[in-house]
């Protein structure tokens, strides 16, 4: 089994989002970075597949030099090797992201055979474009499924499940295939100390693709001016219970 997982390094946003002065990026001076939540589950899924069936699981990202840290995180969780498509930190739109990934996939497949499965997150944690998996699948001529909450593979067929109103829809895709997964498909493990140590010596191939003209061109980001509320403090500690019940009554909840 040869599996590829595409991840994105996204700012670990906690409270209110602050922007850079030019309004074109999130101000990350005081923020860390993390693998996007859906992609974290894609990594876990890939590691489970090669633990069960053997083979290799490759992790790829398109991102700035600092995204190496998220590649190392994925390697610590059990991915075999990494491909880093290094950018200068500017955003890439979903079409150019697809092109860069596609070139890397084709080069890797020419060298060491086709990926049986390409896993991505359903949508990037930051830009949420909902399309890179679909575009990759189309370009490669492979069946593609999104919004996955369940995945099992047997006899060259991937049984894929989506959560829908009233139950789960089941698809059967013949491998090789492309799938975009949602958080909740599994519970990702935490990296172990030996895993972290091993990650330091696993191979990371780098290249610097050229950024083409953007057809979905981000102009600026805006933090929506929601009416910042000032919560009415009903009290401190358990003594506030009668006041809470009063509010529940006034809201018609009791």
């Amino acid at each position, binding site marked *: 089994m040869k599996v590829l997982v595409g991840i994105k390094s996204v700012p670990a946003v906690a*409270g209110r989002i602050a922007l850079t002065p030019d309004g074109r990026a*999130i101000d990350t001076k005081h923020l860390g970075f993390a693998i996007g939540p859906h992609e974290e589950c894609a990594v876990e899924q890939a590691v489970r597949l090669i633990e069960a069936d053997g083979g290799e699981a490759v992790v790829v990202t398109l991102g700035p030099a600092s995204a190496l840290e998220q590649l190392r995180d994925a390697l610590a969780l059990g991915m075999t090797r990494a491909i880093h498509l290094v950018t200068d930190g500017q955003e890439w739109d979903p079409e150019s992201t697809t092109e860069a990934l596609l070139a890397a996939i084709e080069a890797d497949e020419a060298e060491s055979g086709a990926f049986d499965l390409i896993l991505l997150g359903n949508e990037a944690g930051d830009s*949420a474009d909902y399309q890179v998996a679909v575009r990759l699948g189309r370009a490669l001529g492979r069946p593609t499924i999104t919004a996955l909450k369940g995945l099992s593979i047997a006899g060259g067929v991937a049984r894929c499940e989506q959560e829908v109103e009233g139950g789960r829809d*089941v*698809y059967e895709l013949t491998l090789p295939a492309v799938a975009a997964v949602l958080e909740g498909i599994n519970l990702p493990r935490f990296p172990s100390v030996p895993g972290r140590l091993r990650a330091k010596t696993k191979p990371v191939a780098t290249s610097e693709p050229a950024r083409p003209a953007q057809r979905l061109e981000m102009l*600026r980001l805006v933090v929506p001016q929601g009416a910042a509320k000032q919560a009415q403090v009903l009290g401190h500690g358990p003594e506030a219970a009668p006041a809470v019940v009063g509010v529940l009554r006034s809201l018609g909840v*009791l």
Partner: protein
Amino acid sequence: MPPVVVLVTTASGAADEVSLQALTLGRRIAAGGPVHALVLADEAAAAGLGDWGATEVHVARHAAFTRAAPDAAARVLGDLADQVGAAAVLGPGTEAGNTILARVAARAGLPFAANCTALTLGAPTTLTRSRWGGSLLEEAALHADRAIVTTAPHAIAAEPVSGVAAPAPAATVTPFDARLDEADLAVRVVDRVPAAAGGLSLAEAKVVVSGGRGVGSAEGFRPVEELAGLLGAAVGCSRAVTISGWRSHTDQVGQTGTKIAPNLYIAAGISGATQHLAGARGAKKILAINKDAEAPIMAAADYAVIGDLHAILPAISAEIRRARGA
């Protein structure tokens, strides 16, 4: 104005709300020009779409569309757009809508913008789209002759055209000749596993009581469950809870969990990270229970109790029992 095409997804004979929102935006950008709605198989849902601004409704009749078949849907939507010379193709920003519109764009070799909140056609088309579950907006230029977009759920209110004085003109409903080949049908639903019966739906609950990192453990959820039980509420949690393995992901409220819209949301021991608030934005009122009076949740909450949830939640439950005379 050149024609606009809108994908309307349906469930048992009725268009879903987000599709009607997409139709509303489609009607606005068509500015009096034709608005073509595409419905997949669900004939019963087609007739009423004139009220929402469709001038022509096309029903794709094909056995494939009794269940989800995203490539087949994209093929038909793209064919219709070509046939009428559409300047824009819109759809609902749901999982089903986003995957179909992305496929339309990939097939046509055109850009696609998901979850738009506003759109002006032009050269280039300009749009606003939702990021981080709506915590951030992006203004963008779309460089393409045909704009392919979805609308962010509940960002644009669905608006019927029918006024009291003049009823909306009935839309013409015509069958659309769906030409599909094997490749279009490779990805389709082959089975449906029904959900286990029972349990309150988090997305539809009128009251939700959630616990966060401050709950401390899986067992720590007992007072959360107790209060939820007394209020007939669903139990929710934050992402910190699910990644710790204390509760299942199906209980997670947030950007990558369930988006809730209750009348009252009680958030206990939840700091109010962007990820969480993106799922709680639909709540009409929020009561935060937290040790930290400066936590970000306080800027999103209507009411707050400051202190330890492990003391406060049981006290509220006891007070409710007392008030009910039990």
